[in-house]
């Protein structure tokens, strides 16, 4: 409930990227006012105004931290963007700490006509680190689709990928039956993300049955294990392509190519995905 709120689900828009506009804009304004105080020392209140802008920047940055941290925990632990997100988080904490120090250093000289050297340098370093960090945050969204379409998903997304192998499992010479260890704990419309000898597959439970299909959307390769399920349809979180989970067929564009789909069978009481022996090819 609280997690849904902090992820912006009721608004259908993540909260963190909304809130970060404020520290980014205000820290920049603060630096500009510092520079203006050096250029126009006769203009009153520039140093004081820079302090106020920075103070509001720190307050809003601290507010933005909370949903940002929740968004971070929601990224799958083996996602290629997780490292970017860790760097983004670390840099931001450093920036907030630097601005906290900056506020303390300049608070005693608000009536000066010009900003002094120490706090000015701190502001420069702060803006430089923040620009880098903001850029990484943007790349998380525009490159890796983090939190894009997330609000449409009603069930939790996989926390990591299960790595399995088709060797040393039962087979009929043609198909290997790979048991999925966590499948019986899966709830309705929940998914697992599994990798069988390199082949990445989404396992979804719908209407008590299991369906397996390729993880990557055939449009821009969005993560279908994080997709939204309506009946037997899975919708890609990124650009809303829909596929029939039973056949892998495209039911709504922009995707044009069908998914690979895999048979799921129960063997010796275990839920197994059928992949071609050795190759991990579809059935």
């Amino acid at each position, binding site marked *: 409930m609280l997690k849904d709120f902090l992820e912006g689900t009721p608004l*259908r828009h993540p909260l963190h*990227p909304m809130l970060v506009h404020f520290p980014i804009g205000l820290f920049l304004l603060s630096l500009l006012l510092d520079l203006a105080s050096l250029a126009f020392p006769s203009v009153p209140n520039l140093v004081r105004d820079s302090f106020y802008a920075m103070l509001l920047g720190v307050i809003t940055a601290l507010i933005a931290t909370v949903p940002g941290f929740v968004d971070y925990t929601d990224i799958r632990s083996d996602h290629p963007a997780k490292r970017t997100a860790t760097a983004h988080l670390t840099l931001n904490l450093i920036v907030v700490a630097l601005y906290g120090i900056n506020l303390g250093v300049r608070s005693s000289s608000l009536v000066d006509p010009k900003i002094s050297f120490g706090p000015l340098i701190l502001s420069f370093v702060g803006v430089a680190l923040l620009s880098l960090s903001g850029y990484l945050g943007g790349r998380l969204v*525009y490159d890796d*689709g983090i939190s894009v379409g997330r609000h449409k998903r009603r069930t939790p997304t996989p926390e990591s990928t299960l790595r399995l192998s088709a060797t040393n499992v039962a087979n009929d010479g043609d198909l290997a039956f790979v048991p999925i260890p966590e499948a019986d704990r899966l709830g309705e419309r929940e998914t697992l993300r599994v990798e069988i000898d390199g082949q990445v597959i989404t396992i979804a439970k719908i209407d008590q049955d299991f369906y397996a299909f390729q993880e990557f959307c055939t449009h821009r390769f*969005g993560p279908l294990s994080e997709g939204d399920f309506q009946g037997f349809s899975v919708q890609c979180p990124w650009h809303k392509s829909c596929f029939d989970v039973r056949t892998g067929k495209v039911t709504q564009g922009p995707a044009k*190519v069908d998914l690979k789909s895999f048979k799921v069978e129960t063997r010796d009481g275990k839920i197994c995905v059928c992949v071609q022996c050795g190759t991990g090819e579809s059935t």
Partner: protein
Amino acid sequence: MKWSLDLLKGKWLKHPLHPIVVHVPVAMWPSALIFDLLSQWQIGGNAMVRLSFYAIIFGLVASLLAVPTGVLDWSGIKKEKPAWKIGLYHMMLNLIAVLLFAINFGLRMQDFRDATTVARIPLGLSFIGTALLIGSAYLGGRMTYTYGISVARMSKAKWRKIAEAGGANLPPE
């Protein structure tokens, strides 16, 4: 010509430019309203009136870049997509907000140097402009987070490689 379009689309940065630039007006104009209200409540006095004025100018200057980059991103959306219409509303609301803050700026030029509170009309303009801007920014965010505009546009090749390694069916290149 093409290089200038690529420049505005942010290809050189591997990140769309519009959502970066808009941080400035989106932060500045609601902040200007906060500073206006603080001055109204006798907090900060003339320093707040000045700060609000500077915030409005900084937002206007950034709009000079936010508008063309936004129009360009929007022109890349197909007209039959729902995001096209949302983009149109987003653009119209933003243009009204820019206009309101430009007028707001003009009205403050006379007395921001000495005033300790903000007059009623500029204060009202800050209110209306901020409300429109928040609505409009929300629509802009929906374009990204619901409709995936600009998402995986510049990272398509990277994801294709990952999907290929993951044994996926791929679209023709």
